[in-house]
């Protein structure tokens, strides 16, 4: 089985969007779920969140940041090429029904992962405040898309280059200080960002859902590589999550586990199998 890439588009210098033909995945996908892909027979299995889907067309969109060998190789795959494997949808959909006033927070690439949640909440009639944060204005993605589905959109940059300097936590604090009463906060992004959002919302007793992104292999619950500690219990993010109550996560353990293969990832980039000249042309 091979899966055809219908579209590839760079969103900023290191982030790209990829629309893949995968009708069975598209038929069932819901916000919060993810897929596992493998580029070719030498490839590793890597999870990516479903950023969008089109049930009619039978396509699923992922948004990828180039951070290592596999994402770099994937960035070389163009529209018309195929990738070997694209399995899903995996994990539980985010429970969004019944929420009235929600702050959806996306950090960096997490913005792309938060987008389908915000969109679904908007469709369900919730009042949605989207707060996204980037290092600088050149890295901002999905601004128009988010504007279309949010009641309020706040785009912050670390360096203030878009005129709105600060971290997402600063922006959330401002909203809370201004008297906004969120019944739920959804935070998606780097572990450290999610951790600090949770620390803030804990003070105000605002229920907070986070989307965990540990190392995964199969994504179906058969290896436990993605285990995290939630409320003192071991959970498998791929089948029990990926969303969890952010106030119960053992962040330190999660951050340390995220580094388990750091040295290998570096080696893979430097010495790994070269794919140049052998992408999978579909035709």
């Amino acid at each position, binding site marked *: 089985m091979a899966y055809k890439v219908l579209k590839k588009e760079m969103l900023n210098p290191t982030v790209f969007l990829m629309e893949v033909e995968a009708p069975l995945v598209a038929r069932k996908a819901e916000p919060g779920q993810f897929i596992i892909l493998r580029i070719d027979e030498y490839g590793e299995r890597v999870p990516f969140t479903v950023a969008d889907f089109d049930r009619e067309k039978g396509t699923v969109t992922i948004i990828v940041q180039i951070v290592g060998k596999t994402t770099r190789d994937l960035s070389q795959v163009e529209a018309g090429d195929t990738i070997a494997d694209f399995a899903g949808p995996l994990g539980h959909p985010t429970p969004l029904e019944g929420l009235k006033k929600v702050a959806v927070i996306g950090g960096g690439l997490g913005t792309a992962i938060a987008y389908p949640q915000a969109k679904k909440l908007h469709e369900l009639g919730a009042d949605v405040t989207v707060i996204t944060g980037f290092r600088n204005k050149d890295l901002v993605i999905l601004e128009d898309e988010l504007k279309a589905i949010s009641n309020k959109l706040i785009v912050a940059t670390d360096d203030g280059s878009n005129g709105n300097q600060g971290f997402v936590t600063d922006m959330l604090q401002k909203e809370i200080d201004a008297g906004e009463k969120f019944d739920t906060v959804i935070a998606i992004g780097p572990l450290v960002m999610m951790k600090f959002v949770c620390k803030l919302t804990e003070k105000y007793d605002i229920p907070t859902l986070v989307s965990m992104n540990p190392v995964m292999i199969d994504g*179906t619950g058969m*290896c436990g590589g993605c285990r995290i500690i939630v409320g003192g219990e071991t959970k498998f993010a791929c089948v029990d999550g990926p969303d969890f109550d952010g106030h119960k996560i053992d962040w330190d*353990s999660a951050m340390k586990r995220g580094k388990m293969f750091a040295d290998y990832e570096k080696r893979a980039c430097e010495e790994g199998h070269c794919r140049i000249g052998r992408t999978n042309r579909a035709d």
Partner: protein
Amino acid sequence: MPNMRMDKNPMPEQAPDVRNKNFLEVTLGYTAEAAIDEAQRCLNCKNKPCMQGCPVSVKIPEFITHMKDGDFEGAYQKIKETNALPAVCGRVCPQEKQCESKCVRGIKGEPVAIGRLERFAADYHMANVEDTVEIPEPNGKKVAVVGSGPSGLTAAGDLAKMGYKVTVYEAFHTAGGVLMYGIPEFRLPKDIVQKEIANLRALGVDIETDVIIGRTLTVDELLNDMGYDAVYIGSGAGLPNFMGIEGESLNGVYSANEFLTRINLMKGYKFPEYDTPVYVGNNVAVLGGGNVAMDAARCAKRMGAENVYIIYRRGKEELPARAEEIEHAEQEGIVFKLLQNPTRILGNEDGWVTGMEVIHMELGEPDESGRRRPVPIEGSEEIIEMDTVVVSIGQSPNPLIRQTTEGLETNRKGCIVADEDGKTTKAKVYAGGDVVTGAATVILAMGAGKKAAEAIDKEING
């Protein structure tokens, strides 16, 4: 006149200090001469006790009779009548607990090497005979098989031969289940597994990879929307158990499933040619004493670990692994720390494993399973330096299918409840193998697949 020598013909194998550095097959198989000589040790008993020990009832004396005459292809065809995967079974079955345990020659001396003969016949066929597959006459009915491990493949093959249109749904990107991700290359070469699977495809069995039943599709959708006449669930017991001790989240701690999947399925032993990394330190503890533990330990050694320990809470007699694997592990330098039980895993500030505390055990009275219960010896704790830990204390069935299938009864261990024929509490749904029994053996899973295929045919076609 049969060959009355007491011992089996030995099987040539790679030298221990050579093979513990590579992933090539350890045992090299019989030569034709050795196979004929070994076949002549069979007495061709009238009541065939060996067959009672085989879960798929291979016609053992009959196939061995062909081998005596050097008719290896005839022997292969005889085995194939009841066993879909002879090259696999000849290699991984615990024959000492099955066919060979019942062999009359085993009363005085060693039993006939049935497994080695089966393997020889299958390897001979693969090397010398072009398969001609007769596509069976279609009967117009279709069956879905969930999982492409030994149980699902057997059910699929048998049903296809009866004329059913069979589709196998596999969650991974490669078919074969534990034969691909679990059992290492040095015990079961993967091209052999893939050749057996290619034979099934030639029979008309359709294998859909990347489909996770319970997520991509559900059992109810297979029956109601897609119109399958029956579903066979052979999804195995793939959910790893952890011990629940301190330190299991540290870096350097793996479940055996993760460790073996990275190495075998993802070919992590060929990193960085293949992209999947596997971290293995110098001192590796494998917790548990089954075949999976032996496989993990022997893989760790081959990945370059200096010291590899099997840590098991009972004694050597109680080790559940296959006798040949225990022997091979010992020869390869795996150290057995028996009657010891881990109590916690120690780590450093960065979250990496640095050691393990174990407590020594003694054997007390037999428990309900008949095995003597290990009892901790107070004050006998000891700390062992360690940088990698592989937890191999068993697996349970994955919850995805039971959580998403209406009316499918499971027991408190999460295993699907099924009768002897594999019939579950849900109409048209059958199950077998590890998903019913909990983690067991390849051949028992195949036996279950075979029985269920017969039962499905009986239900559909009377």
